[in-house]
């Protein structure tokens, strides 16, 4: 099996950035061989070209309730069309690698479904689908290495003669700036400006200004939730309910300083970074900039290191014991210890560098393998019409105690927590996976959104409100039911007054709440749903109703699906009914971890 020299394409679909990292590793692997590999994020790929490709590799993670990643939804929806001829891909060779976790029932669902669908469309599998498993000893990286080696053998790839086995891929080149810029008064010379470099997702981002940062829960609430309002600088930027905003966070000043001190770098050094390689993540900098600003905005100091990070860092460790330990963590034999140090004890990049004081590469070398800061998606909670020129998100501040008892926090949520009015944040908007019915759609709508999952529903309901303002409300308004759950009515009942207002305006027909810790027994939205079984069944079966679910992944989507099946009918018929609803877009789930 040989390639005709046109090259291979690697498409990856990532949810949290892991698949993207593995795609980069794969690209590094293939760079050694006589072939050109084009790495493309799947949402950037023109899927109509698929039938004409020679060889396509897929690296795909599974998310939520056995779903394909959000960025893959559009591609996937197209691929599922019944009107695609079943021999469309008969000239295409492919191989799929899946990122999964076998402790979930729908293990590697996305990769398996993709593989099957490609076969159904006539594509030729070079290898059976490779299911990476987080639970395995060697983890995802080990499985990827296996897959890459098998592929290399099967495709009979030859090492490129120009490849130097000791050289590593150069992703970025640092160009020293001649002037040593000094801050003028207290204003930094460089500022974060949406620059010429394209964002990681190859989207142009724009600058949002923070308009407000409010606590949405009681001050004594253990679980902090805030609403951040952002300005939209131009009328050409629009969004609709269900859309998602990607936010670029920064490391805190303290953490950045810790890093610079730890590594012995000069924070005021001014430099320009040039991207040298197609597969290197694009950085968003307005060149030139200070090293402090570069580190704060481009590199993820809170990321958990991958095995390759240890392998690459080892090269710089001058203490032989440290070097051996780093190599050990990267090796198959060191897999248990890696698991302990990284997965359980959660030593992040910053802590890792601190723990290996003899490994001190210069900035130019370190940036080749420091994980870049990726933007984080948030469901938009505001309505484009009602909230006109602003964008609001509901952020749950991540705080937890690690196994040593120390307090840890999420990078992006703490960034948002400390943001103040006037701060500039680069953002961009993408379509979410929820497809809301039109505001005028007469079908009854059932929304289930515990916690911050209620965000897209707030967006939709205010949009309905704003759209029907112009009409005089004489027509019958559609029936809409919202299920919301949280811990305490008086602590974290998000947007309580707003739901009441929407009910008075007849935009929201019915609201059911579940406060899990208010009573003696735990009450969740699932219980409330069961209480309304009769009405729900009627709305769904007789009136063609639509059910939308949003919230954090874990058990919730699975539970809701089960609950729905239970109330809609018998054990045999109702699962099929729910599946049919799904295929028609009448049952949709948007989850995030």
């Amino acid at each position: 099996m040989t390639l005709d020299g046109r090259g291979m394409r690697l498409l990856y679909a990532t949810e949290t950035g892991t698949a993207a990292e593995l795609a980069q590793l794969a690209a590094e692997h293939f760079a050694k061989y006589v072939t050109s590999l084009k790495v493309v994020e799947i949402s950037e790929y023109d899927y109509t070209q698929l039938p004409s490709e020679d060889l396509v590799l897929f690296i795909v993670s599974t998310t939520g309730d056995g779903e394909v990643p959000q960025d893959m939804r559009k591609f996937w929806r197209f691929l599922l069309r019944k009107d695609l001829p079943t021999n469309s891909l008969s000239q295409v060779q492919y191989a799929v690698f899946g990122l999964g976790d076998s402790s979930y029932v729908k293990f590697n669902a996305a990769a398996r479904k993709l593989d099957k669908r490609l076969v159904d469309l006539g594509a030729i599998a070079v290898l059976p689908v490779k299911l990476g498993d987080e639970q395995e000893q060697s983890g995802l990286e080990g499985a990827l290495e296996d897959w890459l080696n098998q592929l290399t053998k099967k495709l009979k790839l030859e090492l490129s003669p120009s490849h130097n086995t000791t050289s590593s891929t150069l992703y970025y080149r640092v160009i020293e700036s001649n002037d040593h810029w000094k801050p003028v008064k207290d204003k930094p010379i460089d500022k974060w400006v949406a620059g010429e470099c394209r964002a990681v997702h190859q989207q142009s981002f724009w600058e949002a200004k923070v308009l407000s940062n409010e606590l949405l829960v009681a001050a004594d609430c253990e679980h902090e939730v805030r609403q951040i309002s952002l300005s939209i600088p131009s009328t050409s930027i629009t969004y609709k309910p269900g859309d998602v905003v990607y936010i670029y966070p920064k490391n805190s000043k303290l953490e950045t300083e810790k890093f610079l001190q730890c590594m012995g770098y000069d924070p005021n050094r001014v430099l320009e970074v040039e991207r040298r390689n197609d597969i290197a993540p694009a950085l968003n900098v307005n060149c030139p900039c200070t090293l402090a600003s570069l580190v704060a905005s481009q590199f993820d100091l809170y990321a958990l290191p991958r095995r390759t990070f240890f392998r690459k860092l080892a090269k710089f460790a001058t203490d032989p014991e440290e070097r051996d330990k780093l190599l050990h963590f990267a090796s198959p034999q060191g897999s248990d210890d890696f698991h302990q140090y990284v997965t359980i004890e959660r030593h992040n990049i910053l802590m890792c560098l601190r723990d290996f004081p003899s490994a001190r590469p210069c900035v130019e070398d370190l940036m080749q393998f420091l994980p870049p800061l990726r933007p984080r998606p948030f469901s938009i909670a505001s309505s484009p019409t009602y909230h006109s020129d602003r964008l609001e998100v509901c952020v749950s501040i991540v705080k937890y105690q690690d196994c040593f008892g120390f307090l840890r926090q999420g990078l992006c949520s703490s960034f948002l927590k400390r943001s103040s009015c006037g701060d500039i944040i680069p953002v961009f908007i993408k379509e979410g996976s929820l497809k809301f019915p039109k505001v005028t759609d007469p079908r009854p709508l059932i929304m289930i959104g515990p916690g911050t999952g209620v965000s897209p529903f707030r967006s939709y309901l205010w949009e309905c409100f704003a759209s029907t303002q112009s009409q005089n409300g004489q027509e019958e308004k559609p029936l809409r039911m919202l299920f919301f759950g949280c811990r305490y009515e008086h602590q974290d009942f998000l947007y309580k007054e707003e739901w009441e207002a929407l009910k008075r305006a007849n935009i929201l027909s019915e609201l059911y709440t579940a406060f899990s810790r208010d009573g003696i027994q735990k009450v969740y939205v699932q219980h409330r749903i069961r209480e309304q079984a009769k009405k729900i069944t009627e709305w769904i079966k007789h009136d063609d109703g639509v059910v939308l679910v949003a919230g954090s992944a874990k058990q919730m989507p699975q539970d809701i699906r089960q609950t729905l099946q239970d109330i809609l009918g018998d054990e045999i018929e109702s699962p099929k009914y729910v599946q049919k609803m799904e295929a028609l877009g009448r049952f949709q789930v948007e989850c995030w971890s």
Partner: protein
Amino acid sequence: MQVGGKMAETQWTLESPQDVDNFLSNTKLYPPQPSCKLSFHYKPSDEQWDKILEKVFRYLSNDGTLQLELCQGVDNAVLLKTELKLCGFTDIVVEDSSVEKKTVWTARKPNCDFGVSMNIGNSTTASTHSGGNTRTNNETVQLWTQLSQMEQDDLVDESTLVEWNDAKENGVEKSASACGAGGKGRKPCANCTCGKAEKQITVKFSKTAMSLTESVAPSSSACGNCYRGDAFRCAGCPYLGLPPFKPGEKVDFSAQLQQADI
């Protein structure tokens, strides 16, 4: 960016990388054209050439022509010729005009499809759009392109693609986040003298320990690993979670507990 002009020819004047980006993101909207003219007033980078030429090749209809106008100074004869060939262009001709101070390249997209023919697949479902089962790659691409412009809600039910055994026990417990749970955690150093029982460690680092500010000067560590950082410390080490320190140095627990500027 200018578009339009003569009858069946599309022209673009590209003056900067930004123009190129705009061009690349807009070509999709236009149906196949018989010819295309690009005027470059600057030199695109290698990777940009690659993308531009690829896009143009697909954009042109069969037997279509491409004309590239490069201002003087923008020249890369060998590379450009290779790139054009790699994309599939033929009849590549270059003309140098010193009068107008520019170089003009013409290339043609061939008429046939590289001799590729479609297998007659095992189509069990009738295809609503093709007359028969034989189709070339490019025709499938064009078919897919047409379809992608039409909304379609009739999709294959994805849950039918894979069998799930919901009742199946996966047999793998998701690892609890407790320290050393599952027995695969840290091992104590062979000659550890400072290791306390795990119970004590938990107490030490519990919430009440957040008020612990006294520093402990480690007098000695038989295993020598306490100083080195978590990667070297054993299961019983009282300093787990703290940065490395020097022997005899006072260890300040409170520094660790200080949080980033929330």
